[in-house]
């Protein structure tokens, strides 16, 4: 019993290690020094308060997009639309952030709420189509991503600016910027959003594991027939699951709009945070605490990677390879488990 607990923790750690090992093989084969490469990576992620600040800033939206994907997974849905929901959340947060003049205690929560609502609304459509017409949510969410991108751009151009490419900055009262964090991290772009992201993780855990509604959502996710038999409203729960997932994604957008950037600009393509969220969720085992860690891993790898070309001459793309390898090893945890149990048996 204890052993399996241990393995539950060991498997992802081993997956990360294996990913790094294979990554260093790639580096050696291509003529780079893996020690220099990883030193740069680690320095670039945690080297001093500034880098730590940047890593945390990058981690913030990853946590929320990971939660969004995971929430859907846990309730039997595959939300590839986190990207689009994030973008509309970003838009809504900034919209509220620039349009009102309110005290901070009202304005900031209002802007975040608007983002959550926008993300939820964007997920409502695939939710309804899934619940009532059984249309596959994967296609609809892919389509909704593109619609979000273009519609947001149009709104930025015509409503949030005068045919410009970006909005005004959000008012101070709606900003997540923190002079304190700015000061202790030597002007990193870290902001208060991390607190919201962590609260998000707690909310997801609590909602799914501790509440009556969470029980229903999970039950419907596993077995719609049995849930219906037991008197749960399957359609409502599918829609609700999608909407909550979208709300997390929307808040991830608010982190960008109210924190990292403080405005929204027209986009030529996707931010990638939504798609990375799939990987974050999966590495984190679709579990709130796991996602906090895997988002941190992702954030550190992404931010640390920026240091690799200048300090070690290693292209940043290598980090994408390492991330991919880690995902592979996490996915193949069966084989790791098998090896572990062989080892542990051998040791006995």
């Amino acid at each position: 019993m204890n052993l399996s607990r241990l393995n539950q923790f060991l498997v992802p750690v081993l997956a990360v290690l294996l990913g790094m090992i294979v990554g260093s093989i790639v580096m050696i084969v291509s003529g780079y020094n893996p020690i220099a490469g990883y030193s740069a990576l680690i320095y670039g992620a945690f080297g001093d308060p500034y880098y730590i600040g940047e890593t945390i800033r990058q981690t913030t939206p990853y946590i929320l997009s990971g939660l969004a994907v995971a929430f859907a997974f846990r309730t039997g849905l595959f939300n590839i639309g986190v990207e689009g929901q994030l973008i509309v959340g970003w838009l809504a947060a900034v919209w509220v952030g620039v349009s009102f003049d309110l005290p901070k205690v009202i304005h900031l929560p209002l802007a975040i709420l608007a983002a959550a609502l926008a993300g939820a609304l964007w997920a409502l459509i695939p939710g309804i189509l899934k619940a009532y017409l059984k249309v596959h949510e994967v296609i609809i969410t892919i389509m909704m991503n593109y619609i979000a991108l273009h519609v947001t751009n149009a709104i930025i151009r015509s409503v949030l600016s005068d045919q410009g490419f970006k909005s005004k900055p959000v008012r101070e009262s709606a900003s997540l910027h923190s002079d304190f964090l700015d000061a202790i991290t030597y002007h990193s772009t870290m902001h208060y959003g991390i607190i919201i992201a962590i609260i998000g993780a707690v909310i997801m855990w609590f909602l799914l594991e501790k509440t009556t509604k969470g029980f229903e959502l999970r039950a419907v996710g596993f077995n719609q027939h049995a849930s219906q038999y037991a008197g749960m409203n399957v359609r409502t729960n599918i829609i609700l699951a999608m909407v909550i997932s979208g709300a997390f994604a929307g808040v991830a957008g608010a982190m960008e709009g109210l924190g990292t950037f403080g405005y929204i600009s027209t986009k030529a393509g996707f931010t990638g945070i939504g798609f990375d969220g799939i990987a974050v969720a999966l590495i984190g085992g679709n579990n709130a605490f796991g996602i906090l860690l895997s988002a941190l891993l992702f954030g550190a790898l992404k931010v640390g990677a920026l240091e690799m070309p200048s300090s070690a001459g290693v292209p940043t793309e290598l980090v994408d390879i390492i991330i991919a390898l880690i995902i592979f090893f996490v996915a193949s945890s069966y084989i790791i488990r098998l090896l572990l149990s062989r080892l542990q048996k051998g040791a006995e």
Partner: protein
Amino acid sequence: MSIYEILQIIIPSAIFFAAPLIFTALGGVFSERSGVVNIGLEGLMTIGAFVSIVFNLTFADRFGAFTPWLALLAAVIAGAIFSLLHAVASITFRADQVVSGVAINFLALGLTLFLVKQMYGKGQTDQIQVGFDKIDVPVLSHIPIIGPLFFSNAYIPSYLAIILAFVAWYVIYKTPFGLRLRAVGEHPMAADTMGINVAKMRYIAVMISGALGGLGGGVYATIISRDFSHATISGHGFMALAAMIFGKWHPIGAMGAALFFGFAQSLSIVGQTIPFLKNVPTVYLLIAPYVLTILALAGFIGRAEAPKAIGTPYIKGKR
């Protein structure tokens, strides 16, 4: 502009947009029909695009006009080999197939860009010099009305895509191989008790999807982008995935869906030159393909039944 003139622009461009999606979606059909989810189509296309461009740049001098064809062949092989990773992970290692597919996407992009940097010392390749030619199909292009619409100003691989859809239909629905493939995707244990090697069938199916995904990417790169960079394949694999689901996991359906996407895409582009659409704000035309797809799915296509065993690793003896 007359309607006919408009069609003359829209239809060839619809076919041209659709071709890479058709190849890739057909690949998806094979894999998912065997019960293996393939979210990695995007990555497989990326590999195909990369290999076909590198091959083309490297060997254009040696093979001349054959280069693009050989480059596609290389893309097919590379795609098939790369998809082995997905096969090993999701069939032998019992990995979550979605996770493994996501990893394929990450790995393909990271690896190809890394290699581009290694090989060319920059973030994107040069433009290829030998591509496919636009042709008017002999004889057929002279058929009145239809000829100019369907057989003029087109690329051979586009026709290949359409022919391949029918070939795939034949293979999946008319041959023993196809019957076994579908059996493995619907009820692997039943197939197992009938002496069919489930793992082998799934390996073959995933590798076919790799080959076709590679082909799709190769066709895209050779005809459309003509070079390889981080943005060459951006979302096309996901559109192919959508086409496959839209087409209800059926080769002809997938082709139809891809053509529909191509048509909507082409309409959204040409729309700006059509008199009565001219004053429509651009954004409506930009989102039109996606909105049309949603409406089509919600309106009359409705539910689609995925192969029953999709997404679950087959473990002998497990209920």
